């Protein structure tokens, strides 16, 4: 009987233990999957905002073009601006139409009048943002609102960090749990096969000949658990893509590229199998001296 056949027999003959091991691996790798995608997504979103004009100034309707020009000159004078872009009401409408071209109801409601003209200001460096912001605020012309992207970026950074911390802690905790459960499951099987192991030893089987099927078993749990977790998470992402896309309009995140998901699959299978093999190794080390 081959090694794989023996390992498969171990797995098949105790379905509940197999199920337990696979389910905990599935849960762990699913959490890992979710946080992997979340961490990736948040960094893409962060990059997007970092590369976008960092201050957007919305003007009241009565503001004249000349007043805006003089503000533009003032900002250029600081030599800290990398680009300035004026967006008139009409241009704003065009952008709006482009963004909502699939939704005629939204298009009907909006005319150029209700959209404000704006100025997008990109700084050469994030650290100049505060100074530029002050110049804009001190301007006596009719400014409706200043959207200061640094605020968004700061809160995004803290969100991203929070997601990463929670992810690492939760996935770490679940990984430890998986490791212990696989150790227990494999340990139980070693216990059940004490007599068989004794016989193998007596006919001169090497330690590794006896250990290998158990280690294969751990690897199998890791492989199946992580593959299923990946399938479920990918399914959920595909399902949620239409909803999230409208929420994240303009940010080049969704749909996730299949090649990226395949990379994630590779990472997850590798991690899952490592956890399974480590659990089994601990079990044979503990129970199969």
């Amino acid at each position, binding site marked *: *009987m081959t090694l794989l056949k023996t390992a498969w*027999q171990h797995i098949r003959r105790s379905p509940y233990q197999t199920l337990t091991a696979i389910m905990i691996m599935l849960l762990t790798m699913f959490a890992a999957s979710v946080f992997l995608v979340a961490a990736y997504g948040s960094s893409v979103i962060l990059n997007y905002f970092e590369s976008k004009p960092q201050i957007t100034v919305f003007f009241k309707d009565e503001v004249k073009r000349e007043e805006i020009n003089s503000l533009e000159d003032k900002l250029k004078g600081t030599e800290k601006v990398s680009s300035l872009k004026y967006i008139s009401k009409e241009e704003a409408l065009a952008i709006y139409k482009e963004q909502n071209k699939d939704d005629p109801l939204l298009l009907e409601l909006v005319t150029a009048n209700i959209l404000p003209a704006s100025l997008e200001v990109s700084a050469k460096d994030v650290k100049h943002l505060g100074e530029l912001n002050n110049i804009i605020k001190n301007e006596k012309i009719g400014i409706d609102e200043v959207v200061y992207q640094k605020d968004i970026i700061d809160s995004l950074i803290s969100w991203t960090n929070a997601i990463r911390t929670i992810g690492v802690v939760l996935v770490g905790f679940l990984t430890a749990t998986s490791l212990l459960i696989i150790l227990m499951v494999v340990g139980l099987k070693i216990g059940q096969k004490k*007599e*068989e192991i*004794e*016989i*193998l*030893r*007596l*006919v*001169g*089987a*090497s*330690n590794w*000949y006896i250990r290998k099927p158990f280690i294969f078993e751990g690897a199998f749990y890791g492989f199946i658990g992580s593959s299923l977790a990946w399938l479920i998470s990918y399914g959920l992402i595909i399902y949620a893509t239409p909803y999230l896309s409208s929420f994240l309009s303009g940010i080049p995140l969704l749909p996730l590229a299949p090649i990226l998901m395949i990379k994630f699959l590779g990472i997850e299978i590798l991690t899952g199998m490592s956890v399974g093999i480590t659990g089994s190794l601990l079990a044979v080390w503990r129970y199969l001296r």
Partner: protein
Amino acid sequence: MIQFKNIIKKFGNGLLALSDINLVVENQEFVFITGKSGAGKTTLLRLIIRDVLPTSGVISVDGDDLIKLSGKKTLELRRKVGMVFQDFKLLTDRTVFENVALALEVVGRKPKEIKPEVEKVLTQIGLLNQKDLFPIQLSGGEAQRTVIARALITKPKILLADEPTGNLDHVTSWDILKLLEEINQNGTTVIMATHNVDIVNKLKKRVVVLEKGKIKRDEKEGKY
């Protein structure tokens, strides 16, 4: 050649299983080890395959000091020494064929090579027709012959039999004994621990009698 020099074996619980054992078994000898339950027969056999180590003394097989044997050498030793048990120790989820093949599988032999060898041994032992049966479908004698086949397939220099007839009826016991004698005549050293007075007395082989862990008698053509 198997040599015991001043062997003492004490178990962890303080039980003195063997003491002052001095014994030499020459190649191709047939030796009975007799004695009451608990006299130390099984411990003596387990020492030879290095399943347990002596508390003190020296034990060697073919000149190799077993106490100093490395892990790899221990495996080689076990492949050189076949073992037969009263309770058979067959894998219940494998057929006769697979149980016998096991001894070759563990040393990494290829299935192609294994098949003809297993069939040869099964023919020799008269079990070829039962090769696809599982241990539970076998009679006691057939099960014991399967164990002997498993021990023989590696062509061992030494065969240890720990009460191989303990679970068998009179007639079947004699069948097994005839088989062991035949194996011995083909050049294998056979050491058999037994309770069976009838067999020991009729065969007139060397008999080593143990009592409370010590050798009480050691006779060339002994009796129980």
